[in-house]
Every structure is written in C-alpha cells, then in structure tokens.
C-alpha cells in the first residue's frame, strides 16, 4: 500500500529534515502484525530511525496504558449507564476502539504548565477520548455530560461542547468542518509570537469532504504553521462509509497534494501513533511546518449513543435504525476488535518488560475503580438552576428573559 508523491520543497533553516530517502517502519509492522504504509515521508536527517518510543520511561509507558484504560472504561461505563440507568440523561459519540490515537498523540504533547506554553488540542465530534488524553478532570467531565452544575462547563455544554483550556483542551465541536481551520489559527498565533507551542486537531474521515479540510491544509503549508492534523479514519462518517465522500483510500494522499508531510499509522497501536506524533511535534517546534497523520482506526459503537449495544458488553453489533445508508456489518466490527488498542498496548508493555500480566491486570482494575468513582461523584452533583441559562452570553451580566412576553 505505497504510492509515490512528489517530495515537498525543503523548508529552509531550522532543524528541518534534509534527506529524501524513504524508510518504512518494518520493525514496527513485524512487532504488531500490522500493515503500515509510509507515504512520501522523508527519513530523519539525524539518522534517527524514528522509533521514538525507545526513549519513553517505564513510568510514561504505564501512564499511556492507564490513559487508554481510562478512556475505555469511561466509554464502557457511560454506555452501561445509557443502557441500564433510566435516570441517566447523558450521551456520547463513543470513542471506544480509537483510544490509542488520542493517547499516542497527546503523549507527545506538552500538557502541563502555563496556558501560554502548553500545546493545544482541538477535538472532534467524538471528544471524550481526546479530553481524557489531554488531561481533563474526569469526574468533572462525567458531571458535565450529565448536565450537572458543577461539571467541567457548568452544565452549559455537555458532551458535544466539552472544553478545558487550562490543560490545552480547547474543546469539542458539534460541527463537522470548522475545528481544523480554527486550529490552524492557533498555530498561526504560535508562529507569530515566536512560541514553540503546537496546535493539534483531531478530525474524522467525515471532515475530508468539508471545504475547511482543504483550506486548513493549504494555509498551514503556505505559512509553515506548527499544526498537526490527526485524521482519525474510522471508516464511517455519521452513518455513511467514507467512500461516499472521499475518492482516496488513504486520505493522507489528499494532504500530500498540499505539500504537507504525511504519515499513515495503525491507529490501534499506541506506539506507532506516538512515534508519528513525536516526529510531527519535533518538526513543528523546530519551525518545520505542519504534519498530517492519518490513523487507521475503528469505533466499536455506532455514530451516536449506544443503539445495538448491550449493558456489560463492549461494542454495538445490533441494528442502528439511523444507519440506512451503510450499515456496519457485525463481522467488520468483530474483525477490528481482534486488534484492540487495549490488548495491543498491554502486549507491548509486557513484551518490553515494563509490566507483567499480573501488574497489567491490577492497573486495569485500578482504572475501572477510578472511573466508577468518577461516575459516582459526577452523577451525584447538583442540577443547574434554570435562570443561569441567561448568564455567560457576554463576559458580564445576564440577558433578559423573553419567553414570558
């Protein structure tokens, strides 16, 4: 699965790569059994083989494993709430199945420190995984998704609009299209003020068809912006297969046409994602411009909510009444679940001697308990006061009620 792209012009100055030879991550493919294609990427001038995960401490690797599990247990616990608790009102566009993408990318970012120094993340319409990986307070996110007054955004936004700038999580977007362009604006500001911060946008395969996709990549390349576009290609936008809206098998092919460095990774393998993200972050910080990472991945649930799922079981295999155009075959879902990001991460950590199976299982239990506590706290928080809906329209004051004439 390789093809030729014209090499992009060399960025001048900085620590930009200067070799044009191409190198595939065959070692990595052998390790995970994944098929990896590298597209038009240049080898690193430093002679680095690009396997940046070699430098990760055991502690960091365990953190990443923990993050994957946090996302997974958040999704499962919330799905169970939706399916079995009639009082639960929250919902999600579930991220389960894609955990390695958010985790691998955010592990390469600066997530702690003053706001004007940390990297920023723009999320998509499937935001809970990105939020957790960037470091939001999980109990507060749980409370927000159930419209609680003490939630992350005071109950104003809920799932489609979660945001916590203090950790650089600019937030979810209920719309498909605008986020990448806006993220390029943050990258533009970083470049203008001489900061080494980077802006990351996560967007699905559905974003390809929007004009915003093309505007983002064009301007990011024209201005050499420190932008990392992470395209999570989970094969389906809303209820349609991506072949309805994109003529490319690899969406990275389209990004390559804008002269942008591209990388296609196995989105189920957190190490591959991390390696690609680290290279992209290093390039962006050094003034080398944008990178487009296409992570091949899959969601275990349908577009929205938990139709077709059963409480206590991972994944949705049943009929989603909204999926008239392209119904996801059960065998396709099950085939992707054979390459589960949680399993892959655990196997790698055990294989590398970072943890043994016993410790890995303990971590799983710890995280499950942590998420259960987060739900217990979140769902016991107070509901919003109706009149507060008139606040936060402008920085100060409230707007008048108009619904009573």
């Amino acid at each position: 699965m390789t093809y030729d792209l014209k090499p992009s012009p060399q960025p001048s100055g900085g620590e930009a790569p200067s070799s044009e030879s191409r190198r595939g991550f065959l070692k990595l493919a052998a390790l995970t059994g994944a098929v990896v294609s590298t597209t038009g990427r240049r080898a690193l001038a430093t002679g680095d083989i690009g396997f940046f995960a070699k430098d990760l401490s055991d502690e960091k690797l365990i953190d990443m494993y923990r993050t994957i599990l946090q996302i997974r247990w958040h999704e499962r616990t919330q799905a169970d709430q939706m399916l079995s608790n009639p009082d639960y009102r929250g919902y999600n566009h579930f991220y389960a199945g894609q955990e390695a993408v958010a985790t691998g990318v955010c592990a390469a970012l600066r997530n702690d420190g003053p706001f004007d120094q940390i990297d920023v993340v723009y999320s998509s319409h499937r935001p809970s995984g990105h939020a957790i990986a960037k470091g939001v307070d999980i109990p507060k996110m749980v409370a927000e998704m159930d419209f609680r007054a003490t939630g992350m955004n005071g109950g104003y936004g809920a799932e489609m609009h979660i945001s916590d700038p203090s950790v650089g999580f600019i937030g979810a977007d209920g719309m498909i299209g605008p986020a990448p362009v806006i993220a390029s604006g943050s990258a533009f500001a970083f470049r203008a003020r001489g900061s080494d911060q980077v802006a990351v946008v996560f967007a699905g395969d559905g974003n390809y068809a929007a004009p915003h996709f093309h505007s983002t990549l064009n301007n990011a390349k024209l201005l050499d912006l420190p932008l990392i576009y992470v395209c999570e290609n989970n094969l389906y936008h809303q209820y349609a297969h991506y072949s309805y809206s994109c003529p490319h098998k690899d969406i990275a092919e389209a990004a390559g046409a804008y002269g942008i460095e591209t990388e296609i990774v196995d989105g189920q393998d957190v190490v591959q994602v991390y390696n690609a993200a680290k290279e992209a972050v290093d390039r962006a910080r050094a003034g080398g411009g944008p990178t487009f990472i296409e992570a091949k991945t899959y969601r275990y649930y349908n577009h929205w909510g938990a139709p077709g799922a059963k409480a206590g079981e991972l994944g949705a295999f049943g009929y989603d009444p909204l999926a008239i155009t392209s119904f996801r075959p059960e065998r396709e879902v099950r085939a992707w679940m054979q390459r589960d990001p949680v399993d892959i991460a655990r196997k790698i950590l055990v294989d590398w001697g970072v943890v043994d199976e016993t410790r890995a299982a303990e971590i799983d239990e710890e995280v499950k308990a942590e998420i259960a506590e987060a739900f217990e706290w979140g769902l016991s928080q107070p509901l919003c006061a109706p009149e507060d809906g008139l606040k936060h329209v402008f920085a100060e004051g409230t707007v008048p009620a108009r619904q009573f004439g």
Partner: protein
Amino acid sequence: MAQKSWMYSVLEAVQYEMQQDPAMTWIFELTPPVASNPNMPVINLETEFGRKRVVNTGIDENWMASAVLGAGLAGSKSATYIPYQGALIPFQVIQNVAGKLRHKTGGLAEMPVVWIIEMTGQTPGFGQQHSCYEEDSYYMHIPGVRTVVPSTPYDAKGMMHAAIRSPDPVVYLYPAGLRTLTQEVPDDAFEVPLDKAAVRMEGSDLTIVSSGAGMPGVLEAAETLTEEGMSVEVIDLRALNAMDTETIVNSVAKTKRLLTVDQSYYTLCPGAEVIARAVENVDGVKVKRVAFPDAPPPASPEMFTWMRPNAEGIKGAARALV
C-alpha cells in the same frame, strides 16, 4: 387520503415531482430520502431514481446548497435536504448569490431550486450547536429568496409541491420537532401557496401569530384561553418572506391586540417583523412578543426547558394583554 407522517407527506410530493420530471435531482447527507407509512408503499428516492439523480454526499453543506443552485441554473429542478447541524453553512451562497442573481441578471436567471433546511431546538440536552432554530430570522431577511415554514403535514406536502414548481429559489424550513405529527393528507399532488398565512382559529379579543415549531404551543395555549372565555385568533405565518401582511393586518384591525410567539431569539425574531407591520398599518394596537431569550440554547435540560417558549408562557403573556 390517509393519515400520513410529516416526512412521508414531504417525500410523496418530491417523489411525484421527480416522476414527472426526469431531470430533477435530490442531494442529501445524513438523512436518507426514505419514509414509510402504515399500509402504504415505502418511499425511497435513492433506489427509485438511482444514484445519478439522488446523491448521498459528504458533510459538505456548502456543496449541497451550491450544487442545487447550479443544477437549477442549468435548467434542472433540484432540491437538497440540509440537516440541522449544517443549517447556516449554505447561507453565503443563498444570501449573496441566489438571492441577488435574478436581480443582477436583469431577470434572466431561473432558479427552480429548493433548500430544505432543518430546524431543531426541540430536544433538551443537545445544547448550543444542535439547537439552531434561529434560521428563520436569518433566511427570511434575504430578498429574492422565498422562505417558508410549514407547521402541518398537509402544508408540508402542498408547500413542497409549490416550492419545487416555483421559478424562485425557496428556503423550505423543516421544523424537525414536528416530524412526529400525522394528519390526513391527500395522495394526489396539490399546492399550498408560498405567500399566504393561515388563520387556524378565529376570534376577536387577541391575535396570536406564530409559525413552524412554535405552533403546537400556541394552539395548546389558545385552547385553554378559549375555555377561559377569551376569543383568540391564531395565525400561522407559513410564509416568512414574502410575509402575508394582509392577513395580519385584517386580524389585528379587529382585535387590536397582538401577541407573537417565536422559538427564535427575541432580537429580530419573525414576530418583530409581524409587530412592525401591524403597528404600521393599524392604530392603537397593544403588542407583546414571546421568544427565546437572546442566549444560545444551553445543554442543561433545566435551563433549556425554562428558556424555551411554551404554552404556559404564551398563556401568561396573552392574559397580560387582554
């Protein structure tokens, strides 16, 4: 004649027009042009007319809106169904191209085009971006584009026939909250005019004017007010641009009291225009408007359901006027 759902009524009209005109096209994303109704054949435009004429595309409302305009300019009737999350992305091409095209070509441009634009706002919990029911205010401001909003399955079908047959470009607002309504709707094609309001109840004490998804709350309130002894006249605007001034003025001349109800934001809600036309033409009118406050709809159901205009608020405002 049968009891029909809203979507079935609309697609029956589209199906008929597409059968009559083999050049007519339909573009959609997310919402397949499929509807079923008890004891009636399933309508599926995609399978009936094929994917050359009925296109399922990406999340690209700009293309959808522009492509039907281009199809219309090339002589093909064309319609597109824009779901709510993209409801204002087509604004630019409708406002600054379609709306001005006939005028700037000295009348040469022909645009047999319909943009079906979904309005939501009925579901507590969806929050700001999926509750964009303020589109009526935006689209009705555009000269050169007819903007209509049916509130019954009968009107939905009749206005769809009229919209497709109209030589003018039409923004056909689709109040998704009314999707569950059913009504006796004729099987044959018929037209409901694109420039006439409907008087839903006749009365002499108070005129209440609303449209689209505001209508159920108004009718509920009017029923209670009638039981209380108030004589209420209820007008369903149906046409936002061009607005049926005559029906409004005739009613208000009789009642001298006008209450407008919108789910759109207070500032520049359709009711603001209704009030302006009424007081311009009738002396001594007492007016009030009920609308969503000038705040984005919050996700919290507690906040949202309090802010959304409902029958209780309408009744209170009516009693204060009469």
